[in-house]
């Protein structure tokens, strides 16, 4: 689209020219122009009263924003290890070959570019790709790639591509409470209103519910702290930035259990005293936006959102949806708030914690999608009912996104305390070598440990469960995760910004066959450094996959070692090729001896 045809004025007006709407404004502009020209950024900056450099800084932070043209079709292949295991790398090469487009470059005619992106949350139906940042294609096959190349050459708009390609299945394999029948809309709110805000909160504390996003903080305590903070207003934020590779349970909850999620948010609003709620929906799940908005609209008509909810005077609450633009770090709650405020998504200095000073400086509770779901059920059935499930330290159930080498990938809900081996049996995994629980920032569990149990006291998880059988090279698995962290580092603090890059280069050196045992030692040192010195927990966890795989699968690393001593990062013998050419020698004496 021609930049001149963009109706910037009405777009800005829709967002009240509010600086904190910047990420949404940029997203909508790019949806029309396909990239963000500097002139347009200048116009946006002046309309919002921001400096151009600030707007440029925000635009340059998010992986889905482009300050250079990327083509009429932007095809991003999901690059999680599960996608790679399903052949995504070969398909990406194949599409590039068919379209004659270079890696990370736009084709000269401006038609298309093909690149990779972090996990799109379709691991159980991959390999997947994201086209023009809004359309997902699942279950890629070489046949679909051939067809896609034809459609792109013929300039067929993406909404006219075969509908079957964008089919996303829930694949619920095992349901417990949260994945059972949805409660009737309003039932949990009515129960909470009948009980009263503080009594509902007290009962939530009795449930001992802990956050399902990974950190496991006690939900009741968080909400009490937020409720206690006196301020003009409070906010409830649902963290649907499901960026941890291998995790896709929130996608299913938002697809088929959105009422339960919104109901939990509404109960949170009652408890903390919020009038506005926000869902931070990851950009990859943009395709869910229309159905989520429709559900919100229906709930307004049902009197479950808006003014005087269920006739309760003064209980006013509504929910808005913010769409992300590709950034893993925004899953961290304070980075998420920065992003909601239209800024670069880097984690804040804490304290103050969001419950004291969060969105727009107001006390804010940020909770995971699954946590809000659990709250709805607890409001109906009681905290004691919830606490009776799971283990004393990890109450209730947890939803797992199972993918990788198994017959039945999909969604499984178990009470906490379930054996990892049990999940492997249920999903039809055979000859399993390892499971990555909780995604790259989680724990890599080897076959000897399949008796361990899921829970905060043993193997905690945010929901990913990636299975690797004995045909897989665990070095390749770790290497994929290392590349992920280097790509997603926000760049704010030294140890994560430089450390993730150093680790990636070391792994690349090993992969190229120039590794030595000294390199493994350096990887150990970097892991230790990053655990103790990063600004946020995501940076601290960036070396977890290395630590586990080096400790448990050392032979997978050692097969890449050229020498047990130091070896440089380049091929010394190859460096002498010019000298050999100049002297006309290529005998054995003109080559370096192989180091031993």
């Amino acid at each position, binding site marked *: 689209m021609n930049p001149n045809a963009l109706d910037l004025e009405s777009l800005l007006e829709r967002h009240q020219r509010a600086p904190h709407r910047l990420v949404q404004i940029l997203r909508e502009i790019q949806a029309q122009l396909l990239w963000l020209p500097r002139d347009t950024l200048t116009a946006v900056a002046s309309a919002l009263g921001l400096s*151009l450099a600030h707007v*440029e800084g925000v635009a340059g932070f998010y992986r889905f924003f482009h300050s250079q043209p990327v083509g009429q079709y932007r095809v991003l292949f999901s690059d999680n290890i599960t996608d790679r295991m399903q052949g995504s790398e070969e398909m990406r090469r194949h599409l590039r070959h068919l379209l004659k487009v270079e890696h990370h470059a736009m084709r000269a005619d401006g038609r298309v570019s093909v690149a990779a992106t972090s996990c799109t949350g379709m691991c159980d139906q991959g390999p997947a790709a994201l086209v023009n940042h809004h359309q997902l294609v699942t279950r890629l096959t070489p046949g679909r790639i051939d067809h896609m190349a034809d459609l792109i050459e013929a300039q067929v708009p993406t909404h006219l591509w075969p509908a079957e390609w964008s089919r996303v299945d829930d694949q619920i394999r095992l349901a417990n409470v949260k994945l059972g029948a949805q409660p009737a809309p309003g039932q949990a709110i009515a129960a909470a209103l009948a009980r009263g805000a503080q009594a509902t909160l007290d009962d939530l504390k009795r449930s001992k519910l802990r956050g399902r996003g990974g950190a496991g903080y006690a939900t009741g*305590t968080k909400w009490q*702290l937020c409720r206690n903070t006196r301020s003009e207003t409070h906010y409830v934020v649902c963290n649907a930035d499901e960026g941890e590779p291998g995790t896709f349970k929130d996608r299913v909850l938002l697809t088929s259990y959105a009422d339960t999620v919104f109901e939990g948010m509404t109960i949170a609003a009652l408890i903390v005293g919020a009038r506005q709620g926000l869902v931070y929906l990851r950009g990859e799940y943009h395709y869910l936006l229309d159905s989520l908005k429709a559900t919100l609209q229906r709930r307004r008509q049902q009197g479950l959102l808006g003014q005087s909810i269920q006739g309760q005077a003064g209980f006013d609450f509504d929910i808005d949806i913010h769409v992300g633009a590709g950034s893993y770090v925004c899953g961290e709650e304070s980075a998420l708030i920065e992003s909601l405020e239209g800024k670069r998504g880097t984690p804040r200095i804490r*304290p103050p914690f969001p419950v004291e000073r969060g969105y727009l400086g107001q006390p804010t509770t940020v909770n995971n999608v699954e946590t809000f779901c659990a709250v709805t059920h607890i409001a109906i059935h009681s905290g004691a009912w919830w606490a009776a499930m799971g283990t004393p330290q990890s109450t209730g159930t947890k939803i797992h996104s199972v993918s990788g080498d198994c017959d039945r990938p999909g969604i499984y809900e178990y009470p906490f305390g379930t054996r990892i081996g049990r999940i492997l049996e249920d999903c039809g995994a055979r000859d399993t070598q390892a499971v990555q629980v909780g995604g790259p920032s989680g724990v890599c569990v080897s076959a000897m440990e399949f008796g361990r149990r899921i829970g905060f006291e043993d193997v905690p998880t945010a929901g990913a469960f990636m299975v690797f059988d004995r045909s897989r090279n665990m070095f390749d698995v770790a290497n994929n995760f290392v590349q992920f962290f280097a790509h997603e580092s926000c760049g704010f603090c030294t*140890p994560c*910004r*430089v450390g993730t890059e150093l680790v990636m*280069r070391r792994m690349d050196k090993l992969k190229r066959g120039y590794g030595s045992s000294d390199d493994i030692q350096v990887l150990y040192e970097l892991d230790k450094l990053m655990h103790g010195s990063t600004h946020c927990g995501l940076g601290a966890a960036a070396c977890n996959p290395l630590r586990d795989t080096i400790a448990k699968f050392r032979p997978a690393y050692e097969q890449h070692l050229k020498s047990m001593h130091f070896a440089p990062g380049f091929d010394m013998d190859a460096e002498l090729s010019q000298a050999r050419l100049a002297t006309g020698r290529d005998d054995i004496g003109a080559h370096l001896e192989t180091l031993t």
Partner: protein
Amino acid sequence: MSYYDRIDALSPGTFSLDGDEIEFGPGESILQAATRAGYYIPHLCWHPEFGAKGSCRLCTVRINGRMGAACTVQAASGQEVESNTDDLNAQRKTLLQMIFIEGNHFCPSCEKSGNCRLQATAYDIGMEGPHFEEFYPDRRVDASHPDMLLDLNRCILCSLCVRASHEVDRKDVFAIGGYGIKTHLLINSPSGQMVDSALLPSDRAANVCPVGAILHKRKGFVIPIGQRRFDKVPVSGQIDENKP
């Protein structure tokens, strides 16, 4: 740190730093209180005149056994803070090596040598070499401004110029752009070049760079090498940030 760990930081008190008792005022960070008491904790992105950032991580200390950046953790009564220990100094050395190898820092040819906080801190901590392979990035040099030179090869992303321009000059000449290893400094101007920006040589932001990224033109080597700030006294012996 959990929500429970909050101790009322609005009242004064004392904490211990490597065994010495340090008094702190209401709302002070560990680094602020330590500096005021005349103690040195290595740092690059912190400056007493500006809000804390917590990005270089050099001031990372152990507080009651847990790691935290001294510039962002509020001082509280009874804290046991360890800073000058072998393991923390070893960690600082590694962080300094990381900062060196991610940019292009060639001290012998840099006008800032001797006045450079990065160089001085590295000497002080006993860094003898880069340890890691250098990245040798290809970064921009902006000589468009009549009086100022910007060499991004030496920028360590401390963001002191960003904060000085925002907090003191009220000009917002600088901002941070990009992400990951490609994070970089941005200039606020229509062309993106310094000449079209509002920067003046007298601005606080033009005089706060701890390294040789933002330099004044025609001032090169006015003070000979060997007679510069950190040539005489090591950085750990100069607690007052602004004293030349």
